[in-house]
């Protein structure tokens, strides 16, 4: 049953990525139309706009969710590719373990960085 569970969450993660990357595209490339996420005007990556977005909890949460979804989606895909090389069951367990530990470490670091930037921006 584990493969069904992982594959289902892989699909969900893909959908989350689609929505949040869509938001990212809207913020970065449709600011002339939307404007609401770039209150300082100018380019979306101007420092004032970056700080303004980082102050919002909504964006901090989307960064963390996107990080988790992208890591799970990408690492599960990588695991599938490696498994298709016809490796033995022992190596499969090792690969899964390395990817889980690596993924958790990257998620912890990335989530900390996202939340730290949010906390820092709120003090500006």
């Amino acid at each position, binding site marked *: *049953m584990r493969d069904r569970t992982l594959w289902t969450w892989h699909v969900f993660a893909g959908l989350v990525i689609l929505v949040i990357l869509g938001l990212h595209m809207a913020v970065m490339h449709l600011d002339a139309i939307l404007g609401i996420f770039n209150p300082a005007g100018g380019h979306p990556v101007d420092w004032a706009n970056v700080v303004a977005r980082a102050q919002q909890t909504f964006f901090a949460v989307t960064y963390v969710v996107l990080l988790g979804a992208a890591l799970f989606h990408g690492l599960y895909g990588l695991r599938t590719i490696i498994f298709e090389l016809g490796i033995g069951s022992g190596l499969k367990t090792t690969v899964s373990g390395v990817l889980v530990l690596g993924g958790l470490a990257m998620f912890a670091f990335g989530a900390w960085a996202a939340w730290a930037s949010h906390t820092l921006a709120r003090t500006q």
Partner: protein
Amino acid sequence: MTTFTNVTFRIRRYDPASQPQPVWEDHTLPYAGGMTVLDGLRTLKETVLPTLAWRSSCRMGVCGSCGMFINGRPRLACNTQVTELGTSLVTVAPLPNFRIIRDLVPDLRPMFDAHAALMPHIIRDDEDEMEEPTNEYWQTPHQLEEFLQFTYCIKCGCCMAACPTFATDPAYSGPMPLGQAHRYNTDSRDGGFGARRAVLGGDRGPWKCHYAGECSQACPKGVDPARAIQLMKRQLVFDYLRLWKQPSPARLAVVPAEVKRRADVPEAPARTI
């Protein structure tokens, strides 16, 4: 239509007991009208290649024995006319993705083991009725249509030979067994989804399919196993999310005894049970 005077058969010969590597042999035959690849192989065996080994039986695309790799595609030798290949050079090799027993005979046991593991038969609680049927089970034409095309599978192995995932991952069940599991999961008379789910939810299930679709392209019977696998994924995911539950298996068809047939309604055909 293309016609030829002669046809050259390039055949891959291999006897693992005596040869380190397969070798290719060319043999030329005079073309006869309507010649199939199997006809050519038979003629060669009767004349110059008495030790050539392959499987075949029905000669009419029904038994699924003569699946071979013909001019770069998995095909049935009996169902492939030489003229439809468009060349007078016919290259014949055993189906890829299987161990070779000898010459054109692949070892199909992994396919049939995976097939058996997925319980390709009707599973029900009423075992007495299954053993000694007293009546038919209700099934509407629409319910039959849900799985009918998958019943046309003849287990020839052409889809398995075309599958890029099965080529690299022998743990993958492959299109034929998965397609047949879906065929029974979809049958309204069956109640075995829960039993098959235990296998399908794991690493022998449909999850490694990339939807290359080669299996459906290769099938000589026009079955679409790639579709079956995608439908099966949806069914299993919906089951995981508690959005789908297998309906109760069809009940026995009870015919009302007191009904009188109207004169303008033709009589039903005789019952099979």
